[in-house]
Structures are given as C-alpha cells and as structure tokens.
C-alpha cells in the first residue's frame, strides 16, 4: 500500500530522476527552487508526463512507461493543493467544495466540509473575498471532498506570514490525523519540512538523495546540497594530507611532514592556530586539511570515503575573546569579525578565519542565542577565537 515512485524526465539541461515510497505518513521533499520538486508532484498527479518509469498508488498503476499506462489525472484520485490554491473564482465557497461531488451527495458532503473546516457563514462568498488562510481551508476542503487516496501539497505555506504559517501547519497535521491519507509535500523551507514531515528526501539538481527519517537526515544530510538546504551555513572543501596505517592517538599534527614544501599548508603549525584531535584510536585513520578554515583533523578511513567537504552548523561554533575560554573545543582557530546580524532571539556573526600572518581565509557563520551569548555588541574587525569540535562536523560528499 502507499505510493511508489520511480520516474525520469528530461529537459534540455535538466534531468529529473527520482525514486521514493510514501507510506501512511507525511513525506516531505526538501529542495531549493528549480530543483524539480513541483515537477515531481505534477508527474504523480498526471499533469506532466514523465519520460520513463513507474508510479503505483495503493496497487493501482498510475503510470508505467513499459506497459504503456498513463492514467489521466481524472482517474488517479490524487489530490493536489496548488501553491496559489487555484480556487475557481467564478464559484462560491460552497460551489468550489462541491464541484467534484456527485449531485445526489453534494449537499451533505459540502455541509460536512464546511463544518469540518469552520467555514460556516462563508458558503456563498466568492474566493476573492477570503483571506489567505481561509483560501487554504477551502482548497483543502475541495480536495478532500473529491475523496483522493493521496494528498500532494505544493509549497503550501511559502507565501504566508509566520503566525498564519504556524496555524496552517497545525491544520495540515489535523487533516492527516483526521482523514488518514498519505501526504506528500514539497517545500524549500527546512522549518516547514521539519515541523510537518515524518520522513523526507532531499532533491538537488533533479536528483533525490538522502531519504530517511527527518531526524536522521537533519543530523547527517550526506551531501553538500543537503547540508545547505537543511540550513547548514558553513561548508568547506577538505583534502587528504595523509593516510596512516595505524593512527597514534596522541599525535599532534600527524602527517605534516608529508605536505609538499612551499605550500601554504601548515608545515610548522602552531598549537595556537590549529590543534588536532584524533577521531578515534582504532586504525586506520586519515588526516585532512581544510584550507578555508585553516584546520586539520583526523577521521576513520571507512567513514571518510568519498567525503569531499565538511559542514558545521552555526550554533555549534564557539566564540571567545580569550583562547582559554574555548578549552572545551578540540580545535581552535583565529578569526576576525566581519559583521554581526542581529535577529530577534539570536545573533549571527560572520567571521573570517585568519592565519598567523594575518591573511584572511574562509568565512564561518556563528550563531548564538541571545540568552547565552557572552559577546554581544562586538565591533566589526574585532579579533577573536573560534572553537570547533570535529564530532560536530557533517561529512559531506
């Protein structure tokens, strides 16, 4: 039971290739705009036709390129909530809700959904007179009145202000609890996705990867695009400086001697700039150098295979004026504050990493909640120290 999708669709310069399952759950597709999210939904609803693949809903084949099956949208029983709701402007609220209901049942069904969505008194209003939240209620009611087996939501909350968004999130969760129909929704907002979904997949450049429970995907987004779209503000490339047969847990700056002479890499790196923690005592370990952030660290070979970048979330970075205050962090680097961006309940600091000669390197964005920020109102250009823990690093392909 549920939905199984495995489709491909090509345009010049863009290929959508995606495969996933949706059970009795809310499944989210997270991605930046133009990544193929909406196209995926449209293929499932039958509005667009994939080039190849198969779509099965509750054992009914909706689309199968090999068997030559392509059900029209009318026969798919897939509800679609459009971004702008697509209410019929020439019909009243009640007419919209009842538009797809057979005549003999129309009155009862409309009355039920008017009640379920608290639209009493608005039956004869035109959609143009409704607020954004009411429009979504009518659109949800109209969709459910047609009795779909699957609900698709296309960026349902993106155009709304934050109070209303919260309210409509609750409404969508209510719809799921009350009607028990699988929901597939797409969004570019990590907050929305995290609040609503049980599982999610991240789509980037038409390709879906890292499908899983939301907690797992947010903890380990696997790819750089995944890290970005789940809100990781700091991502930097890394390179291998030394692979060791057996790691010595106590070694400081292992593998330094193998760095080619004349490079900017830390041939005699001081402990003040970069200190290293070995990830684990058990072999084999690999040493990595991150040029942007001027730091090196070690990782287990099998964990680090195919890893091209690391990421660290803004709130996991420590900041202090005195190095001693960052003793809890295995890695400490020097930084210079570029600019602070105050938010209502936290402050973002944009900090450039500085090496011993005072050269500026990559940027790190650090976030501190207002209530436990030790350095408010630091002027731009201030020198400070940044603390990082390799245990917090996201390992990214």
């Amino acid at each position, binding site marked *: 039971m549920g939905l199984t999708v495995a489709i491909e669709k090509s345009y010049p310069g863009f290929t959508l290739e995606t495969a996933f399952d949706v059970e009795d759950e809310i499944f989210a597709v997270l991605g930046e705009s133009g990544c193929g999210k909406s196209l995926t939904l449209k293929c499932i609803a039958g509005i667009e036709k994939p080039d190849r693949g198969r779509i099965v809903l509750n054992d009914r084949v909706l689309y199968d390129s090999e068997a030559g099956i392509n059900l*029209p949208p009318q026969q798919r029983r*897939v509800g*679609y909530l459009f971004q*702008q709701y*697509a209410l*019929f402007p020439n019909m009243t609220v009640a007419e919209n809700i009842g538009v797809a209901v057979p005549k003999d049942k129309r009155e009862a069904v409309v009355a039920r959904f008017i009640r379920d969505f608290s639209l009493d008194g608005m039956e004869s209003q*035109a959609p143009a*007179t409704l607020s954004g939240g009411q429009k979504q209620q009518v659109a949800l009611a109209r969709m459910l009145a*047609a009795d*779909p087996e699957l609900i698709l939501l296309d960026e349902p909350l993106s155009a709304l202000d934050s109070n209303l968004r919260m309210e409509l999130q609750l409404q969508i969760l209510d719809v799921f609890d009350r009607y028990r129909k699988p929901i597939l929704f797409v969004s570019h907002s990590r907050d929305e996705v995290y609040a609503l979904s049980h599982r999610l997949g991240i789509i980037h450049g038409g390709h879906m990867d890292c499908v899983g429970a939301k907690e797992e995907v947010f903890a380990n987004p696997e790819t750089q695009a995944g890290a970005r779209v789940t809100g990781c503000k700091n991502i930097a490339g890394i390179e291998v400086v030394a692979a060791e047969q057996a790691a010595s847990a106590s070694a400081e700056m292992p593998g330094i001697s193998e760095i080619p002479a004349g490079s900017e890499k830390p041939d005699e790196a001081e402990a003040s700039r970069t200190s290293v923690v070995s990830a684990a005592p058990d072999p084999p370990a690999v040493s990595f150098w991150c040029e942007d952030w001027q730091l090196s660290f070690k990782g287990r070979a099998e964990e680090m295979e195919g890893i091209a970048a690391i990421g660290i979330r803004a709130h996991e970075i420590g900041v202090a004026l005195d190095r001693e205050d960052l003793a809890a962090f295995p890695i400490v680097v020097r930084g210079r504050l570029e600019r602070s961006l105050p938010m209502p309940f936290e402050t973002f600091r944009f900090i450039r990493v500085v090496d011993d000669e005072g050269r500026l390197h990559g940027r790190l964005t650090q976030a501190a909640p207002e209530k436990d920020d030790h350095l408010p109102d630091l002027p731009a250009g201030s020198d400070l120290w940044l603390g990082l823990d390799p245990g917090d690093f996201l390992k990214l392909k």
Partner: protein
Amino acid sequence: MDWSPLTLSLRAAGIATVITFFIGIFAAWKVAWMRHGAGIWDAVFTLPLVLPPTVVGFFLLVFFGKASGIGKWLAQFGIQIVFTWVGVVIASTVVAFPLMYRTARGAFEQMDTDLIDAGRTLGLSETAIFWRVVFPNCLPGIISGTVLTFARALGEFGATIMLAGNIPGKTQTLAIAVYSAVQLGHYEAAYRWVAVIVTISLLSILGMNAVNARQKQKGRG
C-alpha cells in the same frame, strides 16, 4: 423607404457572429494548447485580418466559383454561393473570424492554467472544465470577441462585394448601400445609412464595456 440593407446586414452579421463564436473559440482553444505548429495555425487564422478584404473576397470567389471543384459539387445540389445572400454570410464570417479567434485565445492564454489542472485532479471531465471553469473565467474576453465580430461583420464591405456583389434587396448590405448611394449622388441616403451603422456599432461597443465592467466588479466581489 427600403430598409432591406439594414435587415439584411443585421441578419447576415448575426448568423456570421454565431458561426464565428463556435469556430473561433474552438480554434482558439486548440491553438492555445498546441505544442507544435501553433505559429503556423495562428498565422493562417489571423491572415483574413491583415489581408485586404478584396483579396479575401477574391480567394472566396475562386474557391466557391463555378470553375472550382467545390463550386461544381455544390451546384449539383442547386446551391450557389456567388452573388447570393449565403455569400454575404460567408464573406462576413471569414473576415470577422480572426477577431473572435484572437480575443478568445488571448483570454485562454491569460487564464491561470492551475485552474484547469485543479479541475483535472478533482476528477472533472474536460468538457466540464471547459464549460464550468474556463468559459466563465474567460467570459469578458469572449464577450469582447463576440461584439467585435458582430461589429466587423456588420461593416464588412470588400470581401462581400467580391463574393456576393451588389444586388439591392438580395446582397446589398449597409456598407455597400453607402457606397452605392455615394456613387449615385444620393447623399441623403448615404448619411442615413452612415448614421445607422455608426449608431449600431457604438451601441455594441458601449454594451460590451458595460458588461465587462460589471464582470470585473463581480470578480472583485
């Protein structure tokens, strides 16, 4: 006095408008959703608007004339197009068609296609979507097209005189009556017919604007 040019014109323009209404909307609907070849069909459907009406009339004359296959075939059933009232209707239809086609197409293309897709995912048939969603939402455009078609058909001159000639009481329309009256130096009659044409055309367009204004107000609620 002889009112036959007025009644004849109103009747011919009325029938031409009805025919154009359906064919024009159908053509517009097809071309608006065409993936390939829309440009060519659009050019063909718009051509009567830009060609000199006499050229359109010339084509029609050749097409329906006795020398053509169609003319011969119709003659077998005793149907004659050239120099008849049917010719007046055909000439008006062809010349006025692009106005209906283009305005309807503009309305269809401006419509939010999500409405159509929403109708489909809700399970409405294509026919139901057209009549219950597309048509009502494109009504202002369709009304404009219809009025323009009627006004254009009423004023048709060049193609009509080529195909149907100038036979008083039979194919002499208002526009042709003006021409004849001036040629014969009957300025009083010319003024009269001109006044009639201007009045009807003006009223049509005022009526159209009134309807559109009301539609807009309704949309705003």
